């Protein structure tokens, strides 16, 4: 019964968007309560649908749109957990925003845009075909542009918004190319579609992906990955994400935790069968993800802006999720569960950290951690909730991040055993750095001496409340939900006609001898019985013989714990007063090349903006401008000048003297008569 109203999950925020946009300024606090209520209604509906279809149902509604396309709603386990997460986290963020944006003259505009942002993300999640997903995907991009540039009078905010829009656009072009390629390939199959089935619908794609030529699959997968890389801030299109801090902190929280960057990961998870079937598809995903995870983590080490630390951390964690999906080449659909689990857990603790940071910034009035210090004395609630978030991000045992992130590292190890250890090594290094930069931030903000004169007060209840709720989830979600979550998500593709064994053959994931033991070992540990046969393409006989090798040695299981605690201690030795042993400024001086490299963010700004944008792009633009003016415009201008000149001459015919006209008329008649007479003589008429 709730499923019948699934469309309201998107429709209500859209309604809130319209109301806030048109009558928002007449309402208290810009009509923020409308946005909260609309999102909360979405949460209630999602919960209702969850109660109806858990553990083994899906909701699929669809109606024709035009030609070969339809609009529809598809709620399967993957979409459902995303719906729940997004509505839940965003409800809290909107609630918090009611306090945070209070008094801003543009509050109505903020809540209108935030509502549209939420609506587009929700629409993206339960779209039942790729075209619809793409439309909402673009809407998400538009809203992010509007919200990052919310304070558009500030030049840096306007620039950041433009950067976000243009950078993600690069990915979107690839995504669109991928969709078109996929459509053409599906259309070329001349499928015999039943009534209510359309090309580009996910079930149809899943069912027929195996019939598409392998080289085409790789191209499609790379195109889709390009879109995901742009949206999820993966290398090399990650540059917009740290700059996206220019918006209000609540926007950062929404973008980083729930509504935007997760879309890329979701896309890869949604199209997992296609990536699985495409040779090199998942390898590319794993490579991009693992590299981004490490790369961004190193930059997080040196940032001074509290929000930039968190931004780099988001990029890094998204790298983890991507890598988690990528190593699905070794463990199959189990990877989707692991990666999405990290996505959900991450959204809890990253929303918590951002809102906490917002709370600190709200009180302290600066983003610079060098001017904070000792904030914890005045903001107890914020400090402890942030501590929970930080522990979770660092992967401290029993916190959510421990269950989610470390599982990715473990399956990366499986991938290592079967294929390549590089992602595993990168992810472990990234995990160490994660723990270090997280606690560098926490220690230097909340402990120690006050390094400047800042406002000393706790934030209002409307802001602290969401922090506490998120802290509960950041702590308990992983522990409580892991097992069920994995098995629920692992069943996602069983609702469709997907033959992973066959897809694995196409994708080249046939792994003699090795595949089965990993699957079997996982089966024991995770209680996820589907992995063995769904994950690996090899024939069943290999699975029986594979009990000999253990899934992974005990030290692999233990390693993430050591990594987390070691990282936290390392950070403590540098930044926590009570156990401080080293002074960061003495270990690495200002001239230290590595420190400088990291501080400058690998000179990305210099290379991308300074060199690439200002010489290559600007130079190309100049040349194009020349061509435009000289060639395109030049030709047109010449033509119009010629026409004008010709007209100047020919207009002299209009003498204004009646006799001339009469003469012309008579001559014309004479000519006509002569011509017609001649023609009659010849016999033409």
């Amino acid at each position, binding site marked *: 019964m709730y499923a019948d109203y699934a469309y309201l999950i998107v429709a209500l925020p859209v309604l809130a968007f319209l109301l806030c946009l048109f009558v928002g300024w007449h309402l208290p606090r810009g009509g923020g309560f409308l946005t909260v209520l609309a999102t909360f209604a979405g949460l209630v509906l999602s919960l209702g649908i969850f109660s109806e279809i858990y553990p083994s149902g899906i909701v699929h509604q669809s109606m024709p749109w035009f030609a070969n396309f339809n609009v529809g709603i598809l709620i399967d386990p993957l979409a459902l957990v995303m719906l729940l997460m997004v509505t839940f986290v965003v409800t809290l963020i909107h609630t918090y925003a009611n306090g945070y944006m209070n008094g801003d003259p543009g509050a109505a505009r903020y809540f209108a845009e935030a509502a549209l942002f939420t609506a587009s993300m929700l629409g993206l999640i339960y779209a039942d075909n790729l075209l619809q997903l793409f439309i909402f995907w673009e809407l998400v991009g538009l809203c992010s542009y509007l919200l990052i540039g919310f304070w558009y009078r500030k030049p840096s905010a306007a620039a950041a918004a433009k950067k976000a829009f243009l950078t993600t656009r690069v990915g979107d072009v690839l995504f669109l190319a991928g969709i078109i390629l996929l459509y053409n390939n599906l259309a070329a199959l001349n499928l015999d579609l039943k009534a209510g089935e359309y090309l580009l619908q996910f079930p149809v794609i899943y069912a027929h992906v195996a019939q598409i030529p392998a080289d085409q699959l790789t191209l499609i997968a790379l195109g889709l990955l390009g879109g995901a890389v742009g949206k999820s801030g993966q290398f090399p299109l990650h540059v917009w994400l740290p700059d996206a801090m220019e918006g209000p902190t609540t926007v950062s929280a929404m973008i980083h935790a729930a509504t935007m960057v997760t879309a890329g990961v979701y896309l890869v998870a949604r199209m997992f069968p296609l990536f699985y079937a495409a040779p090199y598809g998942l390898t590319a995903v794993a490579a991009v993800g693992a590299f981004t995870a490490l790369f961004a983590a190193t930059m997080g080490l040196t940032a001074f802006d509290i929000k930039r630390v968190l931004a780099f951390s988001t990029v890094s964690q998204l790298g983890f999720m991507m890598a988690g999906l990528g190593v699905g080449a070794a463990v199959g659909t189990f990877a989707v569960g692991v990666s999405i689990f990290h996505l959900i857990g991450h959204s809890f603790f990253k929303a918590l950290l951002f809102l906490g940071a917002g709370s600190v910034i709200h009180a302290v009035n600066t983003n610079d951690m060098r001017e904070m210090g000792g904030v914890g004395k005045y903001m107890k609630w914020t400090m402890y909730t942030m501590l929970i978030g930080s522990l979770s991000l660092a992967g401290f045992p029993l916190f959510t991040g421990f269950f989610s992130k470390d599982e990715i590292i473990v399956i990366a190890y499986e991938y290592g055993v079967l294929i390549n250890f590089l992602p595993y090594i990168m992810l472990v290094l990234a995990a160490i750095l994660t723990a270090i930069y997280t606690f560098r931030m926490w220690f230097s903000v909340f402990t120690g001496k006050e390094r400047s004169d800042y406002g000393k007060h706790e934030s209002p209840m409307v802001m602290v409340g969401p922090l506490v709720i998120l802290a509960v989830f950041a702590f308990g979600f992983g522990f409580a939900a892991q097992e069920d979550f994995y098995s629920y998500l692992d069943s996602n593709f069983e609702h469709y006609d997907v033959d992973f064994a066959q897809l694995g053959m196409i994708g080249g994931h046939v792994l003699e001898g090795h595949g089965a033991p990993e699957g079997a070992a996982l089966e024991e540990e995770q209680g996820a019985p589907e992995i063995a046969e769904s994950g690996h393409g090899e024939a069943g006989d290999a699975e029986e013989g594979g009990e000999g090798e253990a899934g992974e040695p005990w030290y692999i299981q233990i390693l993430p714990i050591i990594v987390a605690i070691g990282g936290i201690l390392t950070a403590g030795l540098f930044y926590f007063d009570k156990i401080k042993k080293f002074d960061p400024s003495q270990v690495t001086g200002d001239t230290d090349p590595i420190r400088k490299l990291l501080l400058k963010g690998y000179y990305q700004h210099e290379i991308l903006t300074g060199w690439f944008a200002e010489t290559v792009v600007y130079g190309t633009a100049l040349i194009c401008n020349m061509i435009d003016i000289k060639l395109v415009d030049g030709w047109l201008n010449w033509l119009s000048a010629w026409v004008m000149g010709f007209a100047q001459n020919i207009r002299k015919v*209009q*003498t*204004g*003297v*009646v*006799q001339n006209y*009469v003469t012309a008329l*008579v001559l014309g008649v004479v000519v006509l008569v002569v011509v017609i007479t001649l023609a009659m003589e010849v016999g033409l008429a």
Partner: protein
Amino acid sequence: MIPLELYILLASTMFTIGLYGLVTQKNGVKLMMCIELLLNSANINLVAFSAYQPNVNGQVFALFSIALAAAEAGVGFAILIALYRLYGTIDLNDINAMRW
């Protein structure tokens, strides 16, 4: 009975004179007169053919045509008077405001 050719000859002579005047004359009143010549040459043709081929249609047409010519002359001279008031002349070479 006068042969038909003579009527046609008369009509075409009148027509040619009218056309010549229309093209060469500059005085507005002369132009009006030339136009009358053209019209009436056509009327002569109508009446002549009507008489030779026993059928009154042509003569009826001629009557209509004469009425039309009267109306046309009325409008034409009214325009000429208006032009004279405006420009102080009816030399059509001097009245050439509607030109390039």
